[in-house]
């Protein structure tokens, strides 16, 4: 595996960022709808946890497809920056979230020494959950919640990230593998 970034790698990474910046931007109103729906039954604290997996897809997908150091972090940052330029509901806040989420996802691949990308993908769902949850403890005031609720929030967040940034990413990459469009020489 070559670690050098070629022009085509960079463009593909940026295009992944572009695709997901549009998806993230579309998700902003979806988040509000889910939130008001859950608020009716008093579970609005879970909105963020249920939907977060979607917002974290760009990083793991970029890493898993491109198999390069830093792809996850840069991919997530590009997605976030694009969302901001499109006029997302969290403005410059998305850059900060993208930064934290990018580090979280990248960490999983880093822990395998960038050798086993399959294990890295599953690890990244875990590290992504831990890092983003740690950030929310302070940023979103989760630290004020009771322990039982915290555990529930953590589990739901993990399941969301596991599904969207793990299972779905894996299925997308598997389809790409079968298409033989990406040849890693």
């Amino acid at each position, binding site marked *: 595996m070559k670690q050098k*970034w*070629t*022009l*085509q790698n*960079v*463009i*593909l*990474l*940026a*295009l*992944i*960022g*572009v*695709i997901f910046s*549009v*998806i993230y931007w*579309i998700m*902003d*109103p979806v988040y*509000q709808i889910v*939130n*008001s729906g859950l*608020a009716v039954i*008093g579970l*609005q*604290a879970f909105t963020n946890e249920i939907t977060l997996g979607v917002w974290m897809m760009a990083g793991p*997908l970029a890493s898993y*497809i491109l198999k390069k150091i830093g792809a996850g972090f840069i991919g997530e940052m*590009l997605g976030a920056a*694009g969302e*901001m*330029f499109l*006029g*997302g*509901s*969290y*403005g*410059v*806040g*998305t*850059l*900060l979230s993208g*930064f934290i989420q990018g580090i979280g996802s990248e960490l999983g691949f880093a822990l395998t020494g960038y050798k086993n990308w399959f294990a890295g993908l599953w690890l990244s769902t875990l590290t992504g959950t831990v890092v983003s949850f740690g950030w929310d403890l*302070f*940023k*979103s*005031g989760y630290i*004020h*919640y*009771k322990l039982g609720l915290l555990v529930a929030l953590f589990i739901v967040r993990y399941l969301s990230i596991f599904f*969207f940034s793990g299972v*779905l990413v894996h*299925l*997308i990459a*598997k*389809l*790409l593998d079968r*298409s033989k*469009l*990406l040849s890693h020489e």
Partner: protein
Amino acid sequence: MMNATQRMILALAISLEISLTKSVTLNVVLFSVAFLLLLIRRQPLKKIGLYVAIAIIPVLGSFWSFYLYGQGTAAENLHFGLVMGSRVLVFIFIGAWLTMGMTPYVLLASLRQNLKMSATFTYGILGALNFMPRFKQAFSSIQAAGMMRGEVLRWWQPTLYFKALVHAIKWSKNLAMAMTSHGFQEGASRSAYRDYPMAKSGWVLIVLILIALQVILFFSRY
């Protein structure tokens, strides 16, 4: 004054600061300043109105969910609701200030010159950004192609992303080839058509603003 890189650093510093503090006063001050800057710099009213429209639902949503369902006393919940609501407002308007009059090209060129980002990344990303409108077309044609076979492609299905990525891979190959054939060389030294230096006065301004934030925070009681 500040160039694009410095503005981005300042915007990130401010968003980090308000993410970790709970002062309604500071948030309101920051929002007012950003809003005034948009007016002073003669941003079209329609654009400002759009930012307000974008803000309404998330601001009210953040406020209500913490006000109605917080874990503390009524006063604490009101305070925390106001903090979270005004925080979203600051995020949106600082974001508006950051992107005001700044194109992705200027930001990328500044990052390349100021932070030594490689030319491959700068121009690769820049080239890719031009595909934004074509993805919209691609998504609708992917869905139309699915409909012709009686498949409704939903956003949680891998097929939709796979097909978008097939386009992305094809375009990335074509664009890389096009850029190379037009003389783009990876790693070659290049001159700049315009310079985007980081001025000392910009750094002074950033430090002053950050100090002012701490002062407001120190004196704010709510």
